[in-house]
């Protein structure tokens, strides 16, 4: 039992209490039901250590695995046959492939936003959700990376994406946004992975120290790198974490900006828009948070993490969804305004065609799911209702997928020349690939939930009031050891040692 829990007479926030209430001058508790570090460790590690997993996990894993199998079949067929197996045609040369790419990259934005930007803003509630949001980021970027790779048709030339001279001694063309995209997404994946892993090291050490089986001890021990909670290590660790957060913050804003350049730098009406970079970033955060909420709600129910991912966390996420949803709604209306204000007939046509042309249904699904239904989050009752937020977050996921579909397909299908207009109709390969990406994501995410700590244990402990050496609960218990004062310079230490050397024990 931890000694901190034996600190007498300090009230512990009750399990399942309503911590969404704002009371001025008082911090709302972020960890409920305990004031004890050991309980937090147990709650999180129980998920990976328990021999049995809930039946729901097996069902979800089975479904994901089946979809992943479908992806394998669809991609193999595509590679052996050619991109003609998709429903692409002459004006619509990008459809489901790039829609899925942009959708998944967008999903991947929430993780780094939570881990980096909210870290810089000292939003302590991020600790409850950052680990699996970061994991979600990595898996989403893996799904995203699949699509540019396979949509080129001849995948054996995928190395043309990298700065390697080809057989004609030509290099890739760095003035193309498509190449910026390769660097942006590649950097984003690498940095997110490193950030995630650095955060995992102390928690892997926790799992290592608790592991019973040899395989677990070896595997967790290997990846924990011999972490032993040293204060000298923590010092550099915290500096490195801060640096990574500071570097990842502009990165996360740049990635979807660069993705939007794929469209904005072209000359196509409906794509050639200066609002795209901020609009895409807001949309990415919007969809990413919705995906985090869709995953966090079942995960906290299933794995008993309600006291760590509390209602306050969900409430905060829903507020972010509301704000970014409003930004996205603003962008939709501003696009229309600029199309009218530009006086360019092609631009005006592109937007009227979006709302009332052959893809009107996709446009209105997008507007309903992204702008109208999130407005319900203005009500606290909705923000704190589990079924409501789950359904609304799924709506946002659907809406954001359609946003990318609308932007890409409606602009291409009805371009400058009416004689070349066509319609995109997805084939079974398109649909199997789209669903298969969800399968890939699901498999990776479910394996992560099973074998790695879903919650950043060390960080959650760090935001408990008991983590501060100046917590008032410690003031009582500590007279018995002969230390009179709290301050760094208060009084001589109790030991009878001769002091007063200057031990500069720090290393670089």
């Amino acid at each position, binding site marked *: 039992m931890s000694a901190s829990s034996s600190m007498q007479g300090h009230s512990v926030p009750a399990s399942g209490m309503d911590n969404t209430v704002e009371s001025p001058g008082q911090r709302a508790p972020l960890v409920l039901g305990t004031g004890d570090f050991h309980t937090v460790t147990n709650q999180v590690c129980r998920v990976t250590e328990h021999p049995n997993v809930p039946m729901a996990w097996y069902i979800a894993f089975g479904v994901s695995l089946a979809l992943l199998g479908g992806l394998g079949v669809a991609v193999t067929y595509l590679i052996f046959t050619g991109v003609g197996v998709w429903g692409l045609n002459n004006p619509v040369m990008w459809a489901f492939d790039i829609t899925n790419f942009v959708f998944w990259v967008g999903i991947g934005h929430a993780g780094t936003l939570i881990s980096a930007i909210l870290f810089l803003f000292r939003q302590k509630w991020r600790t409850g959700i950052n680990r699996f949001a970061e994991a979600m980021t990595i898996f989403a970027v893996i799904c995203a990376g699949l699509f540019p790779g396979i949509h080129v048709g001849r995948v054996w030339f995928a190395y043309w994406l990298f700065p390697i001279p080809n057989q004609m*001694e030509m290099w890739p*063309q760095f003035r193309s946004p498509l190449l910026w995209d390769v660097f942006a997404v590649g950097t984003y994946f690498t940095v997110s992975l490193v950030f995630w892993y650095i955060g995992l090291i102390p928690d892997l050490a926790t799992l290592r120290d608790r592991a019973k089986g040899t395989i677990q001890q070896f595997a967790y021990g290997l990846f924990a790198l011999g972490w032993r909670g040293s204060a000298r290590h923590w010092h550099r660790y915290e500096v490195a974490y801060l640096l990574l957060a500071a570097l990842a913050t502009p990165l996360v804003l740049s990635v979807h900006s660069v993705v939007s*350049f794929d469209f904005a730098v072209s000359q196509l009406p409906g794509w050639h828009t200066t609002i795209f970079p901020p609009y895409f970033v807001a949309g990415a955060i919007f969809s990413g948070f919705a995906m985090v909420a869709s995953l966090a709600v079942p995960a906290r129910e299933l794995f008993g993490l309600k006291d760590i991912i509390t209602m306050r966390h969900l409430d905060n996420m829903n507020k972010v969804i509301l704000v970014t949803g409003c930004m996205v709604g603003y962008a939709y209306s501003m696009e229309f305004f600029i199309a009218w204000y530009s006086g360019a007939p092609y631009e005006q046509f592109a937007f009227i065609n979006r709302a009332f042309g052959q893809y009107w249904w996709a446009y209105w699904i997008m507007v309903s799911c992204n702008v109208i239904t999130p407005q319900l989050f203005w009500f606290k009752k909705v923000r704190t209702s589990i079924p409501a937020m789950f359904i609304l977050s799924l709506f946002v996921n659907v809406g954001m997928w359609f946003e990318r579909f609308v932007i890409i397909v409606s602009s291409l299908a009805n371009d400058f020349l009416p004689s070349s207009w066509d319609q995109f109709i997805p084939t079974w390969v398109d649909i199997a690939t789209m669903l298969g990406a969800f399968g890939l994501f699901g498999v990776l995410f479910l394996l992560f939930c099973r074998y790695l700590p879903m919650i950043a244990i060390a960080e959650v402990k760090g935001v408990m009031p008991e983590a501060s050496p100046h*917590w008032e609960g410690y003031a009582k218990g500590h007279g018995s050891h002969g230390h009179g004062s709290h301050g760094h310079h208060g009084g001589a*230490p*109790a030991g009878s*040692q001769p002091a007063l050397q200057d*031990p500069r024990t720090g290393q670089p």
Partner: protein
Amino acid sequence: MTTFATPSSPSAPASTEPSVAQTWGLVARFANPAELMHAAEAVRKAGYRYWDCHSPFPIHGIDQAMGISRTILPVVVFGVGAAGCTLGVLLQSFTNSFDYSIWALVWVTGYPFLISGKPLLSFPAFVPVMFEVTILLSSLTAAFGMLAFNQLPELYHPLLKHPGFGRATDDGFFISIEARDPQFLRSKTGEFLRSLGASSVEVVES
């Protein structure tokens, strides 16, 4: 791991008691972050040099209590970041703007792309990739530089096999003092740690 002979140990040649010579140090457990911090201050003031605190999460203010000087990691990261930015410029201008040949394991030649009549050295178009390369290299440096300065991975360490020390990654707060510290005396150091309020003081074998 080097172990210093305890200079004033009256008890006899080391050969009779191999475990004495094998001592890596002492580890003392404290009840909570507050006690750990007070003890850390006292250990620093007592003049120990080879010692450390261990906690499941970073404790605010323990750096000052222990007298840890600030790491130079940010300087290294800045340097590498600047180099990364330069690398981004060189990569793009070499491959897209000139036809110089350089030797990079094999001879490679740049390819001056003339696209839409834009200048060969169209700098604004190079900014995104410069930015990404900068971020990539500085992030990798921050992460791996931290591990390198911490001398990790270090898969074997005497503390890691010490029973009970596993709580350092759970809810235990420890101070370890190494036997190679010039002031280290098994009995006296143990006594000192106990006087700071340690709930247990144990010998760690190396």
